């Protein structure tokens, strides 16, 4: 047996996971191997040093409060834990996504066009589109065959903050890469707005004309819902590149 294999035994010994017969083998080997004795002694010393460092580190003041602020904000909406059922709708209505997507596309492109031009006035136009989208949503909310459906909690991006970025450097507008119709778009971190947002979130989705920031887990969940509903969606970008991921119908 090679010394490297005895290193594994030493590791298991430290963890109290070495079988008795292996323990005897190890001791026999170390009796005649200075290098493994040294390795053993070093590892015991390291283990003891770590033991001295072990112990709970005091969480910073405000951590629990910060967590609970987010939790209570989501709890304020019944059933919400980041995802909540659509108001007035108990069911999954695949058509909903198509309708929403149509609204989304229009509103999103309107919003990005507004941001790209860097004007607060144009941003207002995007907000108007948002209202139209919500109206369309309400129109299908009581679909009789509805089973269950979800949308993401209200964490919409503050348009003022977004336009502030755009106004700071209107030349560096978000980069659109429209493919054919307005069915998909790619926004990269080349955009100062995107750069600010991807700092904390991996994805965005447009729902009923509002921009929602999603965590990676939520994003995966949304994709699963879309797939289950048989909806068409497009994603682009990767976690590694920190590009935006956009979803449209």
């Amino acid at each position, binding site marked *: 047996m090679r010394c490297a294999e005895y290193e594994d035994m030493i590791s298991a010994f430290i963890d109290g996971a070495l079988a008795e017969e292996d323990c005897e083998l190890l001791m026999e080997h170390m009796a005649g191997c200075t290098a493994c004795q040294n*390795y053993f002694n*070093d590892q015991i010393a*390291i283990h003891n040093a770590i033991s001295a460092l072990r112990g709970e580190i005091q969480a910073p003041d405000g951590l629990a409060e910060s967590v609970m602020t987010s939790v209570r904000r989501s709890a304020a909406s019944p059933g919400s834990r980041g995802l909540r059922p659509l108001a007035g709708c108990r069911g999954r209505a695949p058509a909903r996504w198509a309708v929403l997507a149509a609204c989304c596309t229009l509103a999103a492109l309107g919003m990005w066009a507004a941001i790209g031009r860097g004007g607060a006035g144009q941003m207002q136009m995007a907000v108007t589109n948002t209202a139209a989208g919500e109206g369309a949503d309400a129109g299908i909310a009581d679909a009789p065959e509805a089973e269950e459906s979800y949308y993401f909690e209200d964490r919409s991006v503050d348009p003022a903050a977004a336009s502030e970025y755009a106004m700071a450097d209107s030349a560096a507008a978000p980069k659109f890469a429209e493919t054919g119709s307005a069915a998909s778009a790619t926004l990269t971190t080349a955009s100062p707005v995107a750069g600010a947002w991807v700092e904390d979130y991996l994805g965005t989705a447009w729902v009923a004309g509002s921009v929602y920031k999603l965590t990676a887990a939520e994003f995966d969940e949304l994709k699963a819902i879309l797939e289950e509903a048989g909806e068409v969606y497009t994603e682009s970008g990767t976690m590694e590149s920190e590009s935006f991921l956009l979803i449209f119908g």
Partner: protein
Amino acid sequence: MTVEELVRAAAGGDADAFEQLVRLHENKVYSLALRMCGTPEDAADVAQEAFLSAWRGLPSFRGEAGFATWLYRLTANAAIDYLRRGKHQRGEIPLDCGGTPLDLPDREPGPQESAEGKELQAAVNAGLLKLSDSHREVLVLREFQELSYDEIAQILQIDLGTVKSRISRARSALRKILLDSGNLSGYLPSNHTGTTKEGRS
């Protein structure tokens, strides 16, 4: 209320019960996050993300592994995601974290030994941050969280054999870092640190 009762209440949407769970576990969660990420800022982000994941996941939590283990898994996963997204900055973890040496000799260490022990602790503290992410993950879960091989396998979603071998490699890598920085030499009673490569088969 017991932890189990708090978990059941929180799963049913009771935010107050969840707050008690957060306060019961925040130090452990933060400690794990800090050990894995290396900076207080990153650790606070990771801890927050872990608790929010717990809140979101509680309705489907089945309790097979126990709430604390499940929460550590969420924390470890949040830290791993954080590390893999490359958002972290390696920092320094304060040495004064409490805890008591478990396996030190019964006799009181002399002043020199005590100073050497502190020195080695500082070197280990710094050395942990120089490990690869995968080595640090597994060593932190084993040495600091004192999780079993099975629990680590569940958290990292790797098999038991890989857990054992990765812990061993991590220990070996940490020793090499300490040897290279001269922090093991002179500390050990046998003083044989210089013969590591020699005479080994």
